[in-house]
């Protein structure tokens, strides 16, 4: 029998308000395929973003500004806050989350053996940049495609039950004209929303490799929460 630690309690509290909701799907193969086809030409991408978090426990949404860089096939860097309060750097084998103000860093390995909500969360973060229909279908089921103000919004449902319990739906909004990603929205089971609106989007800019190499200061406390390791 597994021993429960404090993390279990934390999770219990985290799940305190999560609930499930139904989803729908639509046949939008043509549009999706066109958008996916454009993604194959995407090698790098960068944008400024405004992240809006509408949480059920807050009376008003929270907003934070930040920047995002992406390099195909699987590297990205998110910075939230000005100056950055949270930096997420994704490399092929791991995601490193930096909390500069707290001098804290967390490593999340993404090898094949790794499972659990973080792996699913990373899949969700990757969702904005699928490389092929097969890749998209492996992780998500297309629930719906809607058009609003000339922008297409693709609603995706995670195939992983664990991910679905965390975030039952993720929406990708893109312009059919240039097939550029304009926004993403994550909907949590308790109804909370996390929306990213991208501005100043640049396609295939030249990005320095150092962007995707986390700069962990010597005074940072590093942990690997997925393994429970600490030093």
């Amino acid at each position, binding site marked *: 029998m597994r021993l429960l630690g404090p993390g279990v309690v934390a999770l219990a509290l985290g799940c305190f308000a999560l609930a499930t909701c139904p989803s729908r799907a639509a046949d939008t193969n043509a549009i999706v395929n066109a958008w996916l086809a454009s993604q194959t030409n995407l090698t790098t991408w960068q944008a400024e973003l405004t992240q809006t978090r509408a949480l059920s426990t807050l009376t008003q949404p929270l907003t934070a500004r930040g920047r995002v860089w992406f390099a195909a096939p699987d590297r990205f860097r998110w910075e939230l806050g000005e100056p950055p309060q949270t930096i997420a750097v994704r490399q092929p084998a791991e995601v490193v989350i930096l909390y500069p103000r707290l001098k804290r860093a967390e490593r999340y390995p993404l090898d094949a053996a790794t499972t659990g909500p973080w792996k699913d969360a990373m899949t969700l973060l990757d969702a904005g940049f699928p490389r092929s229909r097969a890749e998209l279908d492996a992780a998500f089921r297309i629930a719906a495609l809607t058009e609003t103000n000339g922008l297409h919004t693709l609603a995706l449902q995670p195939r992983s*039950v664990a991910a679905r319990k965390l975030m039952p739906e993720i929406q990708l909004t893109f312009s059919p004209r240039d097939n550029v990603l304009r926004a993403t929205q994550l909907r949590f089971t308790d109804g909370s929303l996390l929306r990213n609106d991208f501005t100043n989007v640049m396609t295939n800019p030249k990005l320095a490799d150092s962007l995707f190499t986390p700069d962990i200061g010597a005074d940072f406390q590093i942990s690997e929460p997925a393994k429970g390791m600490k030093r």
Partner: protein
Amino acid sequence: MKRWLWLLLIPLALGLVRLRFDVEVLNLLPRELPVVQGLQLYQRHFAGANELLVTLEARDADRAEAAAQSLAKSLRAATNLVTAAHWQPPWLDQPEQSAELVAVAWLNQPPAEFARLTNQLANPTDTLAATRERLATSLSPEEIARASFDPFGLTQLPAAASAPAAFGRGDGMFASADGTFRVVIVKPRGALAGYPECAAWLAAIRAHIGAWQRENSADGVNLHFTGRPVFVAEIASGMERDLRNSVLGTLAIIAALFWWAHRSWRPLVRLLVLLTLTLGGALALGGLFIGTLNVVSLGFAAILLGLAVDYGLVLHQESLARPGASAAEVRREVSPGIIWSAVTTAGAFAVLNFSGLPGLGQLGTLVALGIALGAVVMLLAYPTNADCGAQTAAGDQRTVSSRSAGSQSDVALRSPPQSKMALFATLALIVACACFLFRGLPPLFHSADPLRPARSEAYTTAELIAQRLGGQRDPLWLVVSGRDEAEVARRLAAIQLTLQQAVSNQVLTNVLLPDAFWPNPAHQQANRESARWLTAQRETLRAAAQQAGFATNALSLTESILAVWSRAANATQPIWPTNAVSTWTLERFVARGEGGFLVAGLAQPGARAETDNALARLAKQLPGDGAWLTGWSLLGEALLGLVQRDLRFVLAPMLVVVLASLWLAFRRWTEVLLSLVALALSGLLLLAAMQAAGWSWNLLNLMAVPLLLGCGVDYGIHMQMALRRHGGDAARARRTTGRALLLCAATTATGFGSLAWSSNAGLASLGLVCAAGVTAAFLVAWGLLPGWWLWLHCNPLSLTPALSRWERENRRPLSADSNAPVTSARADFPPLPAGEGRGEGEMPPSPSKPSSLYGGLAWRLGLFAARVLPRAAVGFLCRAAAFAYWHAQPRRREVVIQNLLPLHGDDRASATLAARQLVRNFTRKLADLWRFESGAPVMETFNALAGWERFEAAHTRGRGVLLITLHLGNWELGGPIFTHKGHRLLALSNPEPDARLTELRQAARARWGVETLIVGNDPFAFVEVIKRLGAGDSVALLLDRPAEKSVVEVELFGRPFLASNAAAELARASGCAVVPVVIVRRGDGYAAQILPEAAYDRAALNNRDRRREFTGEILRAFEPWLRQHPDQWYHFVPIWPATATK
């Protein structure tokens, strides 16, 4: 049975009633080992001590989740069976209850930490702003979720700094990552005290779940069960099954083997009844002295049956082989062997109590008690033929006769032991074993897996859960105990430093200790005032949160925590969480009972855990009393070390017992040494067999070594005792005791072998190794030991000072110059006057072993020498050969002396002189015979021929002439006397040792016109003889070499003598003339004397006694010639029956 003996039934009945199954595997292990103590505490109080785990596996996650939810709901409805059923962490069902656990955890923190929280909440605005920032910028789903409902950061416990490490663990307890595999945890209603309760409850649950499956069409969902109730029910039912199957299977095989060997129902039934009584008695004694049977000790039943039956088989076999012996005689004969065998075997099993493994010790005690009981029961109650009456004896005697007449198995048993062959076979075996062991000895398996069930749904399912839910296969557990909360808290604090160092040194990678949740009385007391103050700040906190933009639902956790603190502020005793979620959670790592408290933690071995036995050293660094680092991986090493250490303590007394028993049994170092060599070779064979089969040693089957020492030595004792009893007659020893030992070994190996199907892997391996070892020990004792024994013992009869009447009467003779044994049930054997022979260290030879010189090769060499060498040279060689033979063959020499004693009035000196001359004469006779057979003129060697007219007179009557002679002089030379005179002569002969020699000698006679008829055991041979006699031909016959079916006891020199009644039978059948003939050496030539015809009344010969008398009369006609030429009566095997000495 005396009446008071019935009183014994009372304690036996009490013992049987008291007997219980102990299903706890850890009770097999030594409690003094800390790792065992820790495991026992963990298994008893944690590990879902009383919970059932039902696993569900479906094709997709949704289906699995729906099924798990539905099943849990259905089980909850069965309130008569179930207290609770969880398909997901209970806090997901009742999340509001989690607050209590957090609140108490804060109270348990050091006052400084709680003060930090107090200070933090004293200025909530900053805290709330920080929370909002985290909510806005965090990328961690967990952090966002937590901060949303915990604006004041109350869930951020100091000890929970690594909380993300356990992310998902709660849900991971119930579902695999892909969601297709789920676990439902079921808590039974009421305590399931014993295995009957567990089995009944489990059956009811299975029935309920079966109904649920049918109602919900859950066919696509695979269900499995594990948890303590399943383990208990499974182990108990496995024990019952093992006990039943091993006992019935062993009894069935014993019955089959007995039937195969004896084909007699009554003794078989008696044997089975006595075995059952022995087993029942042993069980009752076990119940009285021990009270429980565990998964290992229950194996005693099959082992005991396999061993106890040996005593019955030995008794039965001996009684069969001694049809005339009384029951007391049979028992007296075999009781030393049985008693010493029981002593050594029981001793071997008893010393298992020194093994350090209580389970194995219990097995040893039970088997030892059972063996002692079995030996007594068999010796007292097993009926021999004398007890059974004539009918059974006759029936069994038929069995013996029919078998000795040539069944295949008996032929195998009668294979002559050749010392040289045995030595060669030994060498070959050693070389073969060395080939197998060239790459090394069977490895030593270090794991504790042998203690686990061999085939277990519960175990397999537990493994599956660990595999699918991503847990460790062999985690380590930290168990801390204490009389009260304070003592546990002190110990938890005390081991922290040691554990941190272990993590730093990479001996451990992670340690999860629930110290944050442990009620610390001192901390709670110190924090109460702060808690009271915080409770008073409730409104302030609420207002600040709302001002910071948090909704009302964000504060429910805070409200709940403050409520608990409010309660704690007024408490005087340590506060424990009490709601359902808290209780369920605490049960994972906290236990109360047995006058104290226990807490369990989890540790993961690090990269350097295996270096220098670091984990074991870490375990020793923990406080010896009250804190344990334990786990199955640690258990294997710890136990193996203990077993290896104790093996020395087991082997030492075992060797002493074996040596003492061997010495007391034999009182001769040569035989003691032979037994030890046999054991050593058996061990070598076992090692080779293990290597070939890919078996390894483990902590249980290592104990096979002392067991085999005790069991294996028995075969050597029995076999050497039999060799002594039978005067070194290895064939006879094999046919009697050897056959019994064959059955014994088969039944013992069966008893051990039946454990191969045991539900306990270690017991199964122990059974297999013991079965192989017993087989090896038997094969060596039966196949090789007699050869070694004969090689070492020149005078086996000197080892038989107390030959029984039956033994002396049942020696089997061999003819002097024929290797063909005369297999008579009543053969003769020379008496051994007390003290004679032994003083010189000389002993008679084995009667079953003719000279190895008598063979085709030696005969052809002789013929060649006689043809090419001058007569003088041949004579010289013969004298030299006689000299060498006399001095090199003391056994033969003694036989010849013994044979001649009656002819010399038991004057040994005179007989010895005659014997020496006999050997010289025999070599000369051989030289003459070889010349004769190589075609040299023979008639000129005769210097006298007397009584020819007697032959002519007899021949004239036309009814044929039966020429009777003895192994006296050179009887073969007589043939040409008759053929030269134009008479047809047929010589009757037994087959020679090999077919080539038979042909050789047949051809030699034919060269002189003498026909040969090989009689052997062919009953139709005499038809041809009668036909020849009817035609008026002459037939030559030796009378002092009785064939098996023609032997009769007559009187010669006033003493009983066994002769062939063939002459009397042929006379009765044909009416032929019976004419004794003597051809003896006289001077440089031979003298032939035809004695007066033996007259008889043919009609009177229809009477059996008369035929015997007539045989005696014929034989006594030779007495003067025998007295005159004792040194030409060539017998090199014993010829006088024992009664002749009385």
